[in-house]
């Protein structure tokens, strides 16, 4: 059984790698199979984890409380199916409106808390004073100036000109250094994924190491 897994795994690994050379039937096969199989996977995940316990089971057991809980999502879900009818298709917008209203409403206070307040708070630290190391102060200033300059860069209602432009330029410099750092930092993780695959091919499949 394990041998089968290893050989099939190695086959698909090579199918996908072959795409690096060019598109070919092996890649096409693996790609189309992955789409079909993963779709079927999610059909099952959604069905067994959500639909069965929360929609089918309540009606089976007849427990009024869980039925009551199952009805609203049932209606919301079924409304989406009105799309198939040219006449009543617009009713699916009710569900969409519900989802969008919920999602965006939930987001607003959380954005203000997590993205604005927490981040602003973290930027309030020692900028001068005794008892704090010189380098700590310098670093704090770098963060402080960097955050403000980056924010300046994102102003839409002012031209990046004059002293405003200079600060915006500092902002973009911070952004670019940050992006470079992120890029460099990520190389590591990406290469380790490849190491994982090569390890699989060399050890589990070919037994070379």
């Amino acid at each position, binding site marked *: 059984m394990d041998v089968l897994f290893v050989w099939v795994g190695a086959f698909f690994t090579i199918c996908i790698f072959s795409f690096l050379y060019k598109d070919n039937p092996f890649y096409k096969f693996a790609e*189309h199979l992955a789409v079909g199989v993963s779709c079927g996977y999610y059909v099952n995940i959604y069905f067994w984890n959500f639909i069965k316990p929360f929609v089918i089971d309540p009606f089976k057991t007849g427990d009024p409380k869980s039925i009551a809980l199952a009805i609203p999502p049932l209606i919301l879900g079924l409304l989406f199916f009105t799309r198939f009818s040219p006449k009543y298709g617009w009713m699916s917008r009710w569900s969409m409106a519900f989802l969008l209203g919920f999602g965006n409403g939930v987001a607003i206070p959380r954005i203000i808390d997590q993205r604005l307040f927490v981040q602003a708070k973290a930027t309030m630290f020692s900028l001068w004073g005794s008892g704090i190391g010189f380098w700590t102060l310098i670093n704090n200033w770098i963060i402080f100036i960097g955050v403000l300059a980056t924010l300046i860069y994102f102003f839409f209602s002012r031209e990046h000109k004059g002293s405003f432009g200079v600060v915006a330029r500092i902002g973009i410099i911070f952004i670019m250094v940050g992006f470079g750092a992120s890029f460099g930092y990520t190389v590591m993780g990406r290469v380790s994924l490849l190491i994982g695959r090569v390890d699989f091919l060399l050890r589990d499949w070919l037994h070379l190491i």
Partner: protein
Amino acid sequence: MVTIYREIRFLTFLFFVPFFFSGILFAQDISSSFNLKAVDKPIDDGGAIEISWSLPKDINIEEIEKLELYRFDPGAAEPVKLGDLKPKQQKFTDESSDERKLRNKTPYIYQLKAIFKDGSQITSEKVEGISKIQWFEKRKFVIFIGTVLSIGLILYCIYKAKTDSNFFIRRMVVIDAIEEGVGRATEMGKPILFVSGTSTINDVATIAAINILSHVAKKCAEYGTRLIVPNKDSIVMTVQQEVVKEAYTSVGKPDAFREEDVFYITDDQMAYVAAVDGIMVREKPATNFFLGMFYAESLILAETGASTGAIQIAGTDAVTQLPFFITACDYTLIGEELYAASAYMSREPLLLGSLKGQDYLKFLIMIAILLGAILYNLGFTFLKDWL
């Protein structure tokens, strides 16, 4: 100089005197030996009381066998034992009675018993606890103020834009590129690929991408360019089908809309990417749009797209993926620009007004950071503590 410093300190102090008083008002007195407290569990919808205590200092914790906590229900003669607790334990949340939850606004009496290893025991004082539903959470008060303020400011700017739409908005190269991208595809007679991120509809970035899609789709409909929109989420797909269909209808070509071009592939990240890669290599779109929330797949998409020679326009608020779009794509909307793009493209005064509102908020936040940092360095931490 020193006097000014002192004055600032004093004035700030005066300003915040009320807050110090509120602190004194909310403080609790400490009197009994066990220091047993029964308080309503904060931030909930009632039905729970938190009991906390600390053992008297003269007791050696090693000698204690266990603690027993009792509750006297109103009207009942015998107490209910809530459980055997470990000597180290210092709190307990009581949230179940026979009726599952504690009744709100009902006084329950609690008492703690310490049983020693030698069999002796001591009992604590009795305290009363009442559980309540909280209708407003004090902790979130500051966030509430922030929410009201920011919503108010953006609304004000939108409202103002209604009457006075004559204000400056800086030019963005990427926006022009989006329009050129559609034109290029038309000239070459090749399709356009639009990926609105790989997240769900609950992600605001997805919505921002869909807003841009509606503009792109209209242009495509006008020029008769094929628009391919593969999806990773079925809800996002239904919304996008709606948006693209509406775009075709709005330019008077409802029949030109091909539902099979706005389609679902799979929920699986990598299988989705494999399929989109396949589309890029086989259909060779002239312009690729990658807008919205992206994860690791960003670079696979962008590099494959680059190898097919397409013009690539990307935009995301995912800070981790931005570096890859910046390097591998021709144009990139960075963070907030993604959200602004739709307003830019619509040229609607109302939407542009909201951009102005964002700028004001940005300014306020910068002031807050500046003020907060200065106050913090002057020894006042309240602004930082609030946030």
